[in-house]
């Protein structure tokens, strides 16, 4: 057998090698340029707005009424509504999602996990408009039986349903992080007389903490940015309140409301959506930066 002699010449083709490299780089550029483009369009249109409404008034004002007389451009009510719904969602999704992940990764036999995990991921694939109507037409009426004063549009049911919606995101990503923790660490803990719960909470969760926190951040960012559910179920009433039974308006829901043609294109009212959008962008950016710092500080490298 003369194997070596049957190989063709394999001189590196410098042109195709280079083309491949740039082709891949082009794909990287697409998402980078899109981000830059989004930032540019937000900034360029928001700047016009901030010439007329000082940034400080925008950020500290407590009344938001761009399309009602007398007009006011204090964004805090929208921020408040956004954070209120996101906080309710986080209170639901973080503990339930983490507990789900612990069950799947540490308690469930392989067979059960192989059935449960895809089922949970189906939950993540349900369109958000469906969740919105679920909140409005099912959860709210049920809650109203308990709290009769509750408004039809309210922060609570939007937040609760949003929480359910982002559970799979928390559980799936956290479970991936937990499954990546070496078995040998679990064995070490069991061999010292740890219970399953101790192994889960004292070894696996700390070792997977960076992944778990990353899942929290992605899920909460999603809650802050989620639009359709809150537009349908939380209301259109910008309000500085922490009363979860009240109707509120989130930043995203406001952008939808105005985009539907309530203000003429190019007007000051219209440009508010870019100012609000820019703020939304900055908020999620800050969250991601904080997340990175927390992860760096707390993670256990194995």
């Amino acid at each position, binding site marked *: 057998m003369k194997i070596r002699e049957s190989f063709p010449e394999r001189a590196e083709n410098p042109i195709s090698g280079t083309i491949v490299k740039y082709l891949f780089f082009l794909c990287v550029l697409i998402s980078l340029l899109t981000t830059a483009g989004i930032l540019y369009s937000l900034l360029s249109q928001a700047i016009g707005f901030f010439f007329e409404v000082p940034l400080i008034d925008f950020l500290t004002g407590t009344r938001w009424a761009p399309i009602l007389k007398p007009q006011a451009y204090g964004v805090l009510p929208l921020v408040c509504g956004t954070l209120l719904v996101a906080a309710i969602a986080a209170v639901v999704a973080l503990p339930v999602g983490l507990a789900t992940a612990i069950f799947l990764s540490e308690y469930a*036999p*392989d067979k059960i996990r192989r059935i449960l995990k895809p089922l949970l991921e189906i939950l993540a694939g349900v369109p958000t408009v469906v969740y919105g109507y679920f909140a409005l037409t099912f959860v709210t009426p049920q809650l109203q039986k308990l709290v009769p004063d509750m408004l039809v549009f309210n922060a609570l049911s939007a937040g609760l349903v949003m929480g359910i919606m982002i559970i799979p995101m928390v559980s799936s990503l956290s479970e991936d992080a937990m499954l990546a923790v*070496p078995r*040998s*660490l*679990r*064995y*070490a*803990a*069991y*061999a*010292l*007389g*740890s*219970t399953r719960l*101790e192994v889960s909470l*004292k*070894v696996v969760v*700390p*070792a997977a903490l960076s992944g778990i926190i990353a899942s929290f951040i992605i899920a909460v960012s999603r809650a802050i940015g989620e639009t359709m559910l809150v537009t349908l179920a939380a209301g259109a009433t910008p309000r500085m309140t922490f009363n979860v039974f009240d109707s509120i308006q989130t930043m995203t829901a406001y952008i939808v409301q105005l985009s539907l043609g309530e203000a003429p294109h190019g007007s000051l009212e219209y440009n508010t959506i870019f100012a609000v959008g820019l703020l939304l962008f900055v908020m999620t950016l800050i969250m991601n930066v904080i997340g990175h710092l927390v992860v760096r500080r707390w993670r*256990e*490298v*194995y």
Partner: protein
Amino acid sequence: MNNMTSPKSVLNTSQLSVYYGSFLALKNVDMAIQANEVTALIGPSGCGKSTLLRCFNRMNDLIPDAVVEGKVLFNGKDLYGSEINPTEIRSRIGMVFQKPNPFPKSIFDNVAFGLKVNGYTGKMDEAVEWALRQAALWDEVSDRLKKSALTLSGGQQQRLCIARAIAVQPEVILMDEPASALDPIATLAIEELIRELKQLYTIVIVTHNMQQAARVADKTAFLMVDDARGGYLVEYDATSKIFTNPSDSRTEAYITGRFS
């Protein structure tokens, strides 16, 4: 060859068999482990020596489909009896693994881990120092207890794992090829430590390295495997006897390297 009735025997197996699903890993093992001795389990790959070791602290419970048949007595009590809590057993029969597996925590927290999960109410600092001294690691780490255990060398990590195991003062320490991932100098340090520790503990060690068994073990058990029967115990006797004058020709063949 067995000394089942000796008052000094800590662990006794009788007709011990282990299945993984339908696969027979270990068949009908009868042996008695004596207190304050080092017992080595040797034999070719797949002979079931690690499986046997894991029967002693019920780590096989953690492997799905593992079924243990027969009896293991720990100080005369049935280790697989219904009143036995495997979690409690594992704090009394410690284990050191093949690859050093320190937790990704500080050196101090590694040693303190077993103390905490077992609800230790004494002074943590003192107990941690005691365990690190026992494992001959204190002088090397006393000035950096808060540093991550992963900053240690492989040999130091393995001694930390031994310190972690002895911190809860088990009666028995099981070691599954504890030096196979270490360099020769770190290996000698571990062997020296094993000889020290047998004053206080009963040690069962699985090893691939026959010189190691000859160097550290008082008793040696030779296991073999064949397709029909799974793993089984061939001969169990004083180490000097096994290595110089084995009773079974298969032991002799293995010791002299005629098969592996």
